[in-house]
């Protein structure tokens, strides 16, 4: 697909507007919807906006989060026990319209979205002001053949993950199907970091050299000033998830957790 076509479909998409003006040193923060309280979503969004995150990823909690470490497993389980669901999340986002302006991406597992209905999911996401979606267990082939058209029709970006073990031809496939950016998983590990905790800058450098049509933004294992610096040096931005959720588990207070996170990253 030509770049100009992409622009048309995503006109007015807040993430697109952001990425057109800012192409480096981006900061995105992930949080689990419905944690620590069911009604925390609005507060967390406002705080992240206020503290200077460029965009957010809102995690849709799932009972069996295969790619997540113990921290996000725990926040997901609590969020589900709090009663979070896709419908509840959309209702919350509807009520925040106009109050929160930070671009939002939804990140979740495929099964809850399938059960909700992909068409209905996209329609409601778009009307709730969501910019894009990440579903790490939706295979690229199936996205292309079955679902891509639905996401595009609703002006929703779709973002694929690539890892240091993804071969080049598959990276190009992910690039051709992703809009907005590619999510570069810097280490072969579940969320919350692998054994070493060291980020694969080689991999990020390799992505840079591949001259992809999308920018790549690094995530998984980013937790402090040094890892943000590396992510910024070798990619267009840094995505922080587990480090934030850890603070939120410890303090139970979104204000405190957000302040501490930003202090760790930039203080």
């Amino acid at each position, binding site marked *: 697909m030509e770049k100009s076509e992409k622009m048309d479909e995503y006109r007015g998409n807040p993430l697109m507007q952001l990425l057109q003006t800012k192409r480096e040193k981006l900061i995105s923060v992930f949080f689990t919807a419905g944690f620590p309280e069911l009604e925390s979503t609005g507060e967390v969004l406002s705080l992240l906006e206020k503290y200077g995150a460029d965009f957010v990823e809102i995690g849709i909690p799932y009972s*069996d989060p*295969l790619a997540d470490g113990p921290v996000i497993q725990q926040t997901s389980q609590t969020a589900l026990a709090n009663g979070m669901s896709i419908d509840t999340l959309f209702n919350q986002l509807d009520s925040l319209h106009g109050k929160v302006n930070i671009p939002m991406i939804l990140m979740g597992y495929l*099964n809850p979205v399938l*059960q909700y209905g992909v068409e209905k999911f996209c329609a409601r996401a778009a009307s709730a002001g969501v910019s894009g979606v990440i579903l790490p267990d*939706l295979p690229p082939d199936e996205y292309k053949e079955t679902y891509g058209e639905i996401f595009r029709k609703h002006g929703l970006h779709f973002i694929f993950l*690539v890892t240091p073990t*993804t071969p080049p031809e*598959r990276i190009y496939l992910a690039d051709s199907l992703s809009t907005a950016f590619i999510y570069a998983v810097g280490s*072969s590990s*579940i969320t919350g970091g692998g054994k070493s905790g060291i980020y694969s800058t080689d991999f990020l450098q390799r992505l840079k050299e591949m001259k992809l049509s999308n920018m790549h933004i690094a995530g998984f294992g980013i937790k402090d000033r040094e890892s943000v610096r590396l992510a910024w040096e070798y990619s267009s931005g840094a995505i922080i998830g587990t480090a934030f959720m850890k603070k939120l588990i410890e303090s139970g207070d979104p204000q405190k957790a957000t302040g501490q996170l930003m202090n760790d990253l930039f203080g």
Partner: protein
Amino acid sequence: MTKKEKTEINPDNRGFYGQYGGSYIPELLWANVEELRTRYSPIMSEKSYTDELDRLLRDYAGRPTPLYHAANLSRKTGAKIYLKREDLCHTGSHKLNNVLGQALLAVKMGKKQIIAETGAGQHGVATATVCALMNLPCTIFMGEKDTLRQKLNVTRMEMLGATVVPVSSGSKTLKDATNEAIRHWINNPDDTYYLIGSTIGPHPYPDIVTKLQSVISRETITQLREKEGRDEPDHVLACVGGGSNAAGAFFGFIGNGITRLTGAEAAGEGADSKKTAASINKGSMGIIHGSKTMLLQNKDGQVTETHSISAGLDYPGIGPLHAWLSKEGLAQYLPVSDEEAIEAAFDLTETEGIIPALESAHAVALLDKIDFKPGAVIVICLSGRGDKDMETYSNYFEGRSRGILPADNHQAT
């Protein structure tokens, strides 16, 4: 029953049986699974592989397992009942068939260590056994709840040199052990082989496990020809959790137009109760452990907690092959409750002197649920032996001898 052309059942090149199966995995797992997908078929058709597997199945596992004519049970029911004695396999269940095959595959792929999930502990024991044999480091993930109700198997695995990791996430059973094994695999991609124990998971696992377990029906055909002068029984009965023994027991008979295939799903306290594990009868289509299949989930697509007295059947999904066989009418799946399974276990013990595993007892209980003509030839896959379940049985046994069936006994197991 639909008559299908008698060809071998294979998933399509993306791992689908009809609309079921596939590979719904995070990108982090893709390279691992892709390596397996591209290598399993060529390796498993090499002569050096099949020769070695045949030797191990014969000399180490003790195959072929007998096809035993259960005369007492036959008299009692009016059918001609054969038990395919997988319980006589080394380690006490059919699980070894699959483990031997996959461990050989792992070695051929150059993998240095093995991880596995286990429910009742049968697959864990089989894996620990083969790892001891082949001198491979072995880590078994097991739900914390299952480590308590199958303590004997934990001890066996540890004695065999395996590390048993109790899993305390989620419902603390097989589903969570599987999640944890997959996460470990993501974190240790290079030298680790994930040895799945059932016909579940992303493609190519359901196909690998089905093919390795198909030795059950292959032997049944030869043995039945000898004993009955025919290749096709009228019925084959097997229990289904993830579905590996059933896949193996059914495989050679699928769509032959004669044999009626019936799987027993664990209904727990009843298929209509909330405490059930009957995925086909009470579930809906969705994705679990990388496979599109029938599973127990709530309206939001969250996987629900299941219940069965048998840890090996306490699983919210089912192998995609079975979801497809059910949809196509090539096999039927009937719910069997905890209590029916227990009763069947005592019946079999009293009539034939065989104490079955609780899982296999579900298959025996199908005799009261299916329609068959007098004299019909029925093969029951007796997938495992009951030693591991003695604590559960003894609780019921005490109740029986007092003339009562304690309703809450499973909580103590």
